[in-house]
């Protein structure tokens, strides 16, 4: 059973490029449709909960599914399975990276790729803004964080803590009204 959990998440971890949300349909197919470890609704609930926790969504989700399936050992097996493929692949790349990075053609390839990475991050941001649903309150949080980091060199963790605390107090008023 534990081996099965480990191998299932190892497989999921090996084939999901792009991380995060790209992984969800694949996890769902394996865990809900093929293995029937979780019901559809329980799976969707687990996404809703783990999505709001710190850490990569795929690893949080693996931990949750592993625990629901086989307790603590299941959680450990699933998390290890989800982390190991990307760890091993990056390790191999890191070992050879220094040598091929100095190649002049590789340097030109990366000169082209770097601006593309900016565009991909900007596009992800654009999609997140659309899905959040902009209102005056939340967008002022976003802009304040941006300015605090860029202009006043705030630590990102400090801005997260401030916004979490502000959310806690501001939205309590909203609930009471």
């Amino acid at each position: 059973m534990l081996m099965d959990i480990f191998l299932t998440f190892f497989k999921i971890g090996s084939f999901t490029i792009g991380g995060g949300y790209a992984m969800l349909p694949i996890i769902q197919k394996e865990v809900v449709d093929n293995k029937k470890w979780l019901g559809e609704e329980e799976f969707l609930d687990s996404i809703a909960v783990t999505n709001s926790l710190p850490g990569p969504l795929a690893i949080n989700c693996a931990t949750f599914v592993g625990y629901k399936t086989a307790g603590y050992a299941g959680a450990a097996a699933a998390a290890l399975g989800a982390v190991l493929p990307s760890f091993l692949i990056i390790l191999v790349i890191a070992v050879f990276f220094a040598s091929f990075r100095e190649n002049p053609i590789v340097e030109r390839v990366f000169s082209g790729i770097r601006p593309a990475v900016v565009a991909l991050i900007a596009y992800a941001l654009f999609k997140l803004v659309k899905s959040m649903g902009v209102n005056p309150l939340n967008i002022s949080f976003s802009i304040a964080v941006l300015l605090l980091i860029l202009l006043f060199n705030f630590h990102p963790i400090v801005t997260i803590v401030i916004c979490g605390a502000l959310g806690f107090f501001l939205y309590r008023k909203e609930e009471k009204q």
Partner: protein
Amino acid sequence: MTALLELFLVFLKIGAFSFGGGYAVLALIQKEVIENSGWISPKEFIDIVAIAEMTPGPIAVNSSTFVGYRVGAVAGSAIATLGVVLIPITISLIVSVYYNKFKHLKQVNRIIKGIRPAVLGLIAAACIKIAWASIVDIKGIIIALLTFYGVWKLKINPIIAILASGVLGVIFYGVI
């Protein structure tokens, strides 16, 4: 030994605050790994993000493995990766165990409601810093605009977009 301990603690901290998945962690890594520790250069970091886009797995894991290797070879990469996932796994486990109680916690929801827009600000800041280091001329601006248009309007797969931009890099910056 102290270097490995420092590596572990830095990534433990990054993991603990990596809300909002994927790109939000970039701002944390920029602060801790580039600006505070100086373990990698801004350009190297962008190359890691590019590689992370093309390989399986979360960006947080990919970059911790990579930076860990630079600082302390294989042991470093294992320690950094363990550091970045340890707190998320622990919290997920606690939530799984007490799942039914957590589901209805309004206080947690309010905190998350405040953090969610903050994450957008973090990603925007990371994006601007990365743009500053990686778009150095008009050719870079053209590649960035083409890529954005490609993934947005033409629905091109990000991996294909990265490979195509690599080809553009060779064309724009000369083959030899």
